[in-house]
């Protein structure tokens, strides 16, 4: 018996047609196909979705937390990038 652990997969679910896939969690699985089965059995038991993506966690390129200051802080003082300076006329509901 080998003690090898199954690799980790990240699971993304599309909850309804027209919406985008969202991260739901992760599963272990011996290979891609079984990862899809495991994701189905772990995350869609209560009709949570209509489509599934799985991707091996080690294939995801992630930003480095140590760099978050350089990456994200500069956006903080640029309030003009948010559409907060418009007056919304009465009666407009879907803006």
């Amino acid at each position, binding site marked *: *018996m*080998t003690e090898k652990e*199954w690799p980790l997969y990240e699971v993304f679910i599309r909850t309804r047609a027209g919406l985008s896939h969202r991260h739901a969690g992760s*599963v*272990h*699985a*011996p*290979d891609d*196909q*079984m990862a899809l*089965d*495991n994701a189905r*059995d*772990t995350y869609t*038991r209560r009709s949570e979705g209509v489509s599934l993506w799985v991707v091996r966690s080690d294939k995801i390129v992630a930003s480095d937390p140590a760099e978050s200051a350089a990456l994200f802080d500069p956006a903080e003082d640029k309030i003009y990038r948010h559409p907060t300076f418009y007056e919304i006329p009465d009666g407009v509901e879907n803006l």
Partner: protein
Amino acid sequence: MTSDQQLTAYTLRLGDNALVLGQRMLELVAASPELEEELANANLALDYIGQARLYYSYAAEREGQGRSEDDLAFLRHEHEFRNLLLLEQPNGHFGDTIVRQVLFDTFYQLQLAALLECNDERLAEIAARAAKEVRYHLRHAERWLVRLGDGTAESHGRAQQSLDHLWRYTGEMFVADELDAAMLTNFDGPDLELMEGEWRRAVAAIVSEATLELPDAGSMAGGGKQGIHTEHFGFLIAEMQHLPRSFPGERW
């Protein structure tokens, strides 16, 4: 038996198959090799319990003796259960569980496909629902069998042993008795002779993809359909029925 009673008895038998397999699989809750597989197995087990409920409540209704689905599941004796012997076999190791699943679901899928076309509307409706669930069960079990058979030398050897061992319980699936004959002639139900060929082809395809060998025919065990069980069955229903028998009518 009138043909009406035969349909009732046949429905009950479908319920017995689903309940006994579901009960066996539920024994694996919190006892699976991997968390994900544990969840998958419990999902599938509950599908069978759900199907058993549909069959039993329909059988109870048809019978009209005031028995409920629970009475049929929990208050009948060993010899009154008419499930296939294959389904009461112990879970054994993971290979045994998977092989049992492949052998039965391949059969059950064909049986359900035929029941979809039968002329009893209610049974056809139940079959339609069950067929969707079983399609997934079979897919899952097939994938595992291929991975075990075509995996390591050890998993290959064990899967082959499971197949050789459980093969003897496949014969009775296709031995038509009075009820099977009645279903075919009176209700346009499954034709077991036809199904046997299709089942063999389907199982042979999976087994060969799994790089395993189909066992030689050998001698086949039988008796499940007549209520004559293997020694494992008493323990299974003892555990399953213990609570309702010890505390009759208890609710929570």
